[in-house]
């Protein structure tokens, strides 16, 4: 064999793809679109199936009621999405739900200021409860960024701390009758859960507003870009001058605030606050984010997907209740849906890689 001459130094522009390779790439990209929309497809299937099986499923009032149920998990999941985009996890949200309700209950019972019992107006109560949620989130963030505690461990610890705090404040008891007293000027708390501005329950409006804010934050603000970058590759983000510590702290604060808002909605709906409210809600929120196509490793996920994920979980649960399916089956079906969603996600990633390799081979298939 003789030695070959040198090849051209510059790489030639990509030649047109051979037809069969192009067709393969097209097929793969169609499949990719189907995968991309899988959560929507799942939701559509749920709606059609339940709609066919029950007359009362697809009524306006039922859809509104179900959406109201979705809103609680949806609001928590929006906060969770930010944490997961960062590549973290927040297990403390369920406990923050309980803590927030308990703080609201305590404040609405009246706070003594220098011997006089003060009844803070409802807006003050709401602000303070959200501040408590943000405070817990800030602690999570500080543990993760300053003390290098793994997010799973830090928020697991806060799950217990916040729950214990809720128990301590309430002494284990439930606060009843949070409707307030007109004479004390602290009425209106129940409107958060039962009010219907413009015909829709307040909680749905809260979810819509928070989702819109999240979309703006993620798609338009520099913070959103920093967040995706930090979750995608923390080292690269750091070297690009992204303030990764601040980004990482803020997502826990936002997550805590969202959970606190959800806790307020629940306490308002029930006009009572129980310290054990919100147990295991963190898992529902994580499930919504994951069904919505976010990667637990960070950097990938959307508000739209997360909301669809929350709707899938909520409509599934309510639909099964309407059909009268046994509780045990409800639990099992929910688990199966989560696993299926994640499997499809893995499938999509594999297809993406295969698609990239296929088009690269097609591009290089030039005569030699």
């Amino acid at each position: 064999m003789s030695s070959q001459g040198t090849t051209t130094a510059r790489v030639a522009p990509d030649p047109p793809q051979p037809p069969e390779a192009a067709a393969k790439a097209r097929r793969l990209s169609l499949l990719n679109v189907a995968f991309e929309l899988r959560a929507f497809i799942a939701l559509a299937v749920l709606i059609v199936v339940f709609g066919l099986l029950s007359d009362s499923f697809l009524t306006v009032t039922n859809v509104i009621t179900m959406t109201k149920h979705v809103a609680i998990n949806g609001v928590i999941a929006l906060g969770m999405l930010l944490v997961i985009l960062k590549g973290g996890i927040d297990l403390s949200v369920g406990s923050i739900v309980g803590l927030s309700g308990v703080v609201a209950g305590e404040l609405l019972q009246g706070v003594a200021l220098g011997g006089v019992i003060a009844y803070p107006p409802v807006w003050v109560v709401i602000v303070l409860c959200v501040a408590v949620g943000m405070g817990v989130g800030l602690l999570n963030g500080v543990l993760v960024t300053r003390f290098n505690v793994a997010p799973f461990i830090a928020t697991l610890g806060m799950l217990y701390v916040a729950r214990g705090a809720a128990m301590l404040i309430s002494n284990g008891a439930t606060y009843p009758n949070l409707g307030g007293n007109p004479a004390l000027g602290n009425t209106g708390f129940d409107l958060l859960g039962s009010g219907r501005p413009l015909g829709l329950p307040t909680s749905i409006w809260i979810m819509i507003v928070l989702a819109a804010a999240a979309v703006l934050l993620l798609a338009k603000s520099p913070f959103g870009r920093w967040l995706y970058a930090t979750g995608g590759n923390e080292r690269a983000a750091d070297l690009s001058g992204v303030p990764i510590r601040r980004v990482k702290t803020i997502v826990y604060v936002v997550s805590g605030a969202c959970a606190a808002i959800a806790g307020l909605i629940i306490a308002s709906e029930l006009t009572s606050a129980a310290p054990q409210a919100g147990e295991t809600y963190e898992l529902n929120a994580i499930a919504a984010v994951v069904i919505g196509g976010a990667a637990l490793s960070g950097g990938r996920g959307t508000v739209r997907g997360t909301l669809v994920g929350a709707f899938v979980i909520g409509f599934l649960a309510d639909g099964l209740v309407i059909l009268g399916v046994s509780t045990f089956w409800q639990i099992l079906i929910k688990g199966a849906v989560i696993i299926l969603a994640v499997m499809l996600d893995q499938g999509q990633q594999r297809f993406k890689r295969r698609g990239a390799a296929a088009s690269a081979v097609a591009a290089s298939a030039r005569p030699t």
Partner: protein
Amino acid sequence: MSAAPRPARRLLVVLSLLATGSLLAACGGGGAEQKAATQPSATSGGTAGGLIAIITPSHDNPFFKAEADSAKAKAEALGYETSVASHDDDPNKQSELIDAAISRKAKAIILDNAGADASIGPVRKAVTGGIPVFLIDREINATGVATAQIVSNNAQGAQLVAQSFVEKMKNKGNYVELVGKESDTNASVRSKGFADVISQYPDLKQVAKESANWDQQEAFTKMETIIQKSRDIQGVIAGNDTMALGAVAALKAAGLLGKVTVVGFDGSPDAIAAVKAGQMHATALQPAALGAQSAVEQADQYIKTGKASKEEKQSIDCELVTAENADDYGVFARK
């Protein structure tokens, strides 16, 4: 109530711990009528009689808290030192707590156990170690091990409340049943007690039966969904008061409150308040305080005389609480 430490101070302390304490700047004042009747004091009472260990499920349920509080108060009144602990329905933790009681040479153990089968071994271990065990609220599936098993009669209570429910419903109508955690024996015992009575009235039709895991928010959500299916509902019978109160909130949101008969079980202070307010029709009160006090008295007798004063299996009947007699009841006990 006035002697109790103010909840607002606890709130302050806890929130300061959470680094957000500066947001609130007050303590003292605020009445909280729903709070437990007795507050655990920081130090235990007399030490002459020795130690009595009180072990119950988690105090986040006011029922167990009332149980533990009254046992503690009774024991200290009788001159015993007490240790109060919660096993959180974890048999393993229960076993460790019993080990601790043995090593502290407790004179007796008052136990609301963590499982009818899983608790037999630990109870036997304590008895072998020379410590008599007095079971309250829940039985174990063995006799001759514990000195006493004092339980409230769930079946009787369920029938009692179901009977009142049926009368209020005038023997007819559509009703929803909310069942407790389906893995819990009490959930099925109560559900069966309801059915024993209601099945005799063919015009009473069960339109939905859902588990809400003893949980208020879950009961609220499920009830809202059930209402979506049909508003033609005249009654709700719930396996505990927490779920009944969740149903009340859902009925209120749907504008059905007052048109639907709601009954619960347990006799929690919140439920009694709802009964007084006319939101609930009735509940079956489990005399937790009574059972706990009785257990301590029997333990006292046993410690002093060395033999059991009553037969092992004892059951305490539940009491029906309706608007007529609601004022007579306090925290899981007749006033």
